[in-house]
């Protein structure tokens, strides 16, 4: 019997198979097929970005945020990395019977705070309550609409040889925090989710250079998944330099213990930008003036090699493939 597995929601190969083999089979159209973080649509001479995302994170509260903050940031980020100014959000709640009203208020408050900070309005909503046992506490869906800036054309098919790959800071913070909290792994140290709205950072990058080829937020599947998608859509080869990749000591340590690779771990406040080399430094300098880009770094480049794949020059001078993630992240035995 063919059933839905957890891996169908992990943002890797199986997620793509589900999208391609089922959703695209029935929903396929020119806008959806571009597979950007937000759909880019033209209405009355305005270019709009439109997206939706559902949030099912467990635990609902975690170091650095909660499901509500995540729900606003996630959708704001999908709009802004598409080169849009995020404008309006909707928010739908599916709540399990018995959920604490006080906790719900904390969550809604943090949604309001993030919305205010990022300049979006939550303009419509929906609430459903399901019987105890039929949901895991609380799920939130947010949809968002934004206006794409003039003279900006960001698309995951736009990467070109010579582009450099920039990230805005340390990788794997969110996923590692969740994994450790979910399993009470009790690592000491400062493991905190990077959950944040990136729209002001993206504004700052586009002000520095509005011709940025690609921006993606590196959520499920981590930077590895995003770069594989870019390499696929743009038909280019991307080479990463392991030595340049920023990873917090705590994340490195915990990932090491569990046998996981931070490149594949989810982020909620990290983006990947592909920028022509000539403009890379001006974009990087601009990013570093922003609090969410203080640790921005160039981590690789698009090479002249034929074919589409992502590989890494390792710290010890070897090479290895950085493949599309597959399955769910599972800790190893020893």
């Amino acid at each position, binding site marked *: 019997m063919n059933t839905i597995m957890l891996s169908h929601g992990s943002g890797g190969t199986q997620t793509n198979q589900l999208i391609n083999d089922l959703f695209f089979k029935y929903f396929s159209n020119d806008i959806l097929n571009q597979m950007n973080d937000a759909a880019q649509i033209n209405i009355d001479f305005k270019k709009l970005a439109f997206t939706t995302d559902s949030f099912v994170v467990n635990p609902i509260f975690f170091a650095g945020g909660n499901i509500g903050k995540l729900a606003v940031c996630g959708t704001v980020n999908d709009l802004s990395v598409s080169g849009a100014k995020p404008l309006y959000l909707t928010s739908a709640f599916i709540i399990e019977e018995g959920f604490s009203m006080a906790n719900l208020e904390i969550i809604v408050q943090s949604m309001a705070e993030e919305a205010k900070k990022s300049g979006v309005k939550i303009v419509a909503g929906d609430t459903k309550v399901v019987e105890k046992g039929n949901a895991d506490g609380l799920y939130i869906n947010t949809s968002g609409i934004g206006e794409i800036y003039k003279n900006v054309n960001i698309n995951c098919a736009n990467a070109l040889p010579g582009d450099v790959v920039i990230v805005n800071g340390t990788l794997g913070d969110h996923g590692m925090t969740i994994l450790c909290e979910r399993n009470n792994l009790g690592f000491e140290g400062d493991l905190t989710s990077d959950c944040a709205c990136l729209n002001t950072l993206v504004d700052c990058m586009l002000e520095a250079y509005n011709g940025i080829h690609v921006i993606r937020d590196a959520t499920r599947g981590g930077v590895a998944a995003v770069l594989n998608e870019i390499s696929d859509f743009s038909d280019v080869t991307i080479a990463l330099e392991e030595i340049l990749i920023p990873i917090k000591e705590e994340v490195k340590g915990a990932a090491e213990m569990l046998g996981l690779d931070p490149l594949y771990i989810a982020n909620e406040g990290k983006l990947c930008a592909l920028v022509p080399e000539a403009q890379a430094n001006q974009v990087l300098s601009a990013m570093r003036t922003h609090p969410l880009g203080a640790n921005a770094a160039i981590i690789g480049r698009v090479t002249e090699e034929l074919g589409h794949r992502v590989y890494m020059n390792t710290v010890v001078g070897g090479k290895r493939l950085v493949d599309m993630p597959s399955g769910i992240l599972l*800790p190893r035995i020893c």
Partner: protein
Amino acid sequence: MKFVDEFRSNEYSKLLVENLKSITCNKINIMEVCGSHTMAIFRYGIRDILPPNVNLISGPGCPVCVTPQSYIDTALELSSRKDVIMASFGDMMKIPGRKGSLLKKKAEGADIRIVYSPMDCLIIAQENPSKQIIFLAVGFETTAPMTAVTAIEARKKGLSNLFFFTAHKIVPPVMEALVNDPDLNLDGFLLPGNVCAIIGTEPFQFLSKNFMIPGVVTGFEPVDILQGLVTLVSLISQKDPRISNDYKRIVRTDGNPKARQYMDEAFNLVDSNWRGIGKVPKSGLEFNREFEEFDAIKHFGISYEAYDGGSGCRCGEILKGKIKPTQCPLFKKLCTPENPVGSCMVSSEGTCAAYFRYYKEL
């Protein structure tokens, strides 16, 4: 975590590779026994930077890969029983049995929990007194002491609903089987630092004494591995069959006596079936009479005979280092991480998984 970056240093690595290139010797075959070594070697692209005369061969040191398919099939059957909670390390979840995997069973509703330590089962057992908890006790000397301690603790707590389906194995006997194999021409071994942390270096001295083959105990960071190779290649070139401990920051000559004491307290050494390799004398651990109340095989009255999966999977030869995954006709065609034929493709330490994930003609 401290001591990570130091052992991933570009500078040291370059020096070590230069060192390695300066040691003259003929073409040599070195087996890294441990799956964690295999993964690290691929993850850091170490094969690319070695001199061409040094040939690394991946060995049978992935505990999940050497567990017979009959074990997985029995685990799948047990997980479907009423009032059973199954607990397992993450690695086991994707392993293919005849009727799917534990992940698939979980999706279909079986209560299967991923644990980080068998000790987590004590809490599960306490919180679920009306359920029978079965821990899939797989692994080498690295995990067997934890199983033993958990059983000892369960007894102290008077828990009568926790059982262990054991398939623990120990490493030295299978290595003896490998060096006795006339088809394999091994000049030296990179020995598993994690296993040696428990059993020490003494159990590997037979390589040196009986077979004149050197071995180097080393860790899992790239600098550890390169340093281990420098020592090993030197020993081979000098025809010095010593067992060297290059992982002294973790491994003591006598290992961890306390951990071994727990193993001795709970287990008997028995013959064990290794997937693709066959029966290896005195290479498995089974609860002794004193602890047999924890043995799931006895408690559930399982008749359990070892067999492997068929269908053209060449894992056996891969586990013995006789062929590379790329020489298996199923590799990347019928056998992928999404649709694995053999466990080597989905275990986090499997050789096929390492080749699939990290290695392409670059």
